[in-house]
């Protein structure tokens, strides 16, 4: 944060606005620096350096970079979906259910139609149709979530918990709980192919992240989303249709989840009702780590990208140090709590960082009413 010339707005030299001792403010300033994004970038770089120094052989190798690039897109897309939902002050706990249901529908379409049409063009057409069905399914699931939240007024947590169970349940019924195979061989490109040395799923993620970033920061719709997330009552009185915003946001969530599902299915060469269940907590963690405020109104795509990178570096590093899965589960949970506390102290001690729509002194009085 550049030093402000105006003595009236300059923070007090001794003790912050909330009376923190100067030492604590200086410490937070060291961690916090210019903006939450810069701080996150520094943390990501530190994790990368530490892992490279601790395990240079397996970590700092082309093979590891390539495998990380293949692992990132699926949970990055899910994290993006959670972030978008959190912008409205809601949350989407059904994303994993949507992802699996969509990919199961895709594999059903592909394996029923692929043997009937011949030729390369026919197979490609069938794959395109399967993908289309999955994306449509994801968007419709999102529409259902949006309707539950905005028209029936069910709190997003319970609405998406309920629909998530229904989606997973339908997926279980469709597959009988087993892994569904039978994708055409060409479909594996989606999850396993490379284009210009970069994995295809990474291209997909980069493209979608760019689209979401443009929608959020360059369109009237994006501005309305931030406004509604900051203060739904004010946005309603400003003439914004909160219901319309919510429905479109949850449809975007569903769409992103369906894409993640397609990538997961392609990488696993099968679709199953309980793939990626651990991703739900990880996505919430990444969204919060990336600076998204669960109460709504604050969050950026750039934060998600950095948070995803740091999580992947940590995860791969832990794997190489042979940390058990249970220990990792413990670390993710503890990390989520620590990050939230650090964010809170940061918000309390620093004046509003540039680019953030509002200062985060105290959570809104409507605590937990999401």
């Amino acid at each position, binding site marked *: 944060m550049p030093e402000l010339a105006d003595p009236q707005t300059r923070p007090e030299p001794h003790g912050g606005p909330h009376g923190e001792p100067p030492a604590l403010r200086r410490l937070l300033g060291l961690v916090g620096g210019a903006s939450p994004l810069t701080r996150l970038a520094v943390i990501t770089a530190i994790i990368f350096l530490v892992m490279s120094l601790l395990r240079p052989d397996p970590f700092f190798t082309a093979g590891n970079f390539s495998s990380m690039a293949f692992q990132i897109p699926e949970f990055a897309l899910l994290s993006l979906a959670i972030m978008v939902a959190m912008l409205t002050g809601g*949350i989407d706990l059904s994303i994993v259910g949507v992802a699996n249901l969509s990919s199961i529908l895709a594999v059903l379409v592909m394996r029923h139609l692929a043997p009937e049409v011949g030729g390369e063009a026919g197979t490609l057409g069938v794959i395109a149709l399967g993908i289309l069905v999955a994306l449509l399914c994801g968007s419709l699931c999102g529409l259902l979530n949006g309707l*539950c939240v905005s028209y*029936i*007024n*069910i*709190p997003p*947590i*319970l*609405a998406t*918990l*309920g*629909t*998530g*169970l*229904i*989606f*997973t*349940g*339908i997926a*279980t*019924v469709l597959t*009988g*709980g087993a892994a569904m195979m039978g994708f055409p061989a060409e479909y594996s490109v989606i999850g396993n192919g490379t284009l210009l040395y970069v994995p295809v799923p990474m291209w997909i993620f980069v493209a979608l992240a760019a689209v979401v970033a443009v929608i959020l920061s360059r369109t009237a719709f994006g501005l309305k989303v931030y406004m509604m997330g900051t203060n739904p009552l004010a946005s309603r009185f400003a003439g914004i249709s909160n219901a319309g915003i919510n429905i479109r946001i949850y449809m975007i969530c569903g769409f992103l989840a369906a894409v993640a599902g397609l990538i997961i299915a392609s990488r696993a060469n099968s679709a199953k009702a309980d793939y990626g269940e651990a991703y739900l*907590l990880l996505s*919430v*963690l990444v969204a*919060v780590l990336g600076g998204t405020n*669960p*109460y709504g109104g604050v969050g950026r795509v750039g934060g998600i990208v950095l948070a995803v990178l740091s999580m992947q570096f940590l995860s791969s590093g832990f794997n190489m140090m042979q940390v*058990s899965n*249970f*220990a*990792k*589960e*413990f*670390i*993710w*949970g*503890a990390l*989520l*709590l620590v990050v*939230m*506390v650090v964010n*809170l102290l940061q918000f309390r001690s620093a004046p509003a960082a540039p680019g953030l729509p509002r200062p985060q002194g*105290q*959570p809104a*009085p409507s*605590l*937990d*009413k*999401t």
Partner: protein
Amino acid sequence: MPSWATRNEVIVALVIVALCVVTALINPSFLSLATLFDMLRNGILIGLLAIGVMLVLISGGIDVSFTAIAAFSMYAATMLLVDLGIGDSLLLAFLISAGIGLSLGMINALFIAGFGLPTLIVTLGTLSAFRGFLLAFVGSDLISNVPPAMRDFSRSMLVRGTDAAGYFYSLPTAVLFLIAAVVITWFILYRTMLGRSIFAVGGSREAAARIGFNVRATQVFVYGYVGVLAGTAGLIHASLARVANPSDIVGLELEVIAAVVLGGARLTGGYGTITGTLLGVTLIVLVNNTLVTLGIPTTWQKVMIGFLILLGTGLPAFQARLRANRMG
């Protein structure tokens, strides 16, 4: 329609009766003491957990970590009892398990009441942290030689016998814990200032603070109480099963939350009844036990519970919306 007819409790009670009638028509042996006691036995764990979740919802929060607390307390307590060779006292067993539950509940309270962080995300984090810590650092193997006190407790029955059709029936003493929890929670909610403060904080945090309720202390109590209930429920579960399995219980959280919201407790806080919660638990246990009898494969169980959550929350929310529209 009169207002009582659209209350969740009435609707849930009607669904329960309808489900019982249909099941009894298909399978007449359903109407027996054995079935009733079986369902009571299955309801102890979910019932104890649901009472805790109801308090959290009334106070305006949500907790998904209680299953991890129950599993953690159950396993750590059993392990302590076995390793220290102090497994002869049932009271000590319950004190240790409830004490561990209380400490874990206090960790939730630290983040929620202390830092004011959103309850869903905090408890998602602690769910994963508690479970991960338990399985990575405490232990991941079954303890099947449960201490003598727990074994005796599992054999202790209030009623036992054989009915006319030759079915053996028994009601474990553990059901007394559920009854005690109901009575104590009722007393706290409706006969103490603490109970009023839980409703007040859930109804409007700001208003509660302004009329002098201590919001943080109330939240600390709520999350501590959930911890104690979860610890107790965990030990009962391990006793009845005569094995402490660290991967048990976790995964039940959605069923329990479904039971509570079906009973009419609102996530927006300030409203919830014990009768409703117990009816919700009954319905969930009934659904779990009768789907197979009704010829519905268990794969549909998740769909049913998800549908019930949407119905249980959607109906009152939709009515509130209609009322608001009528008024203006």
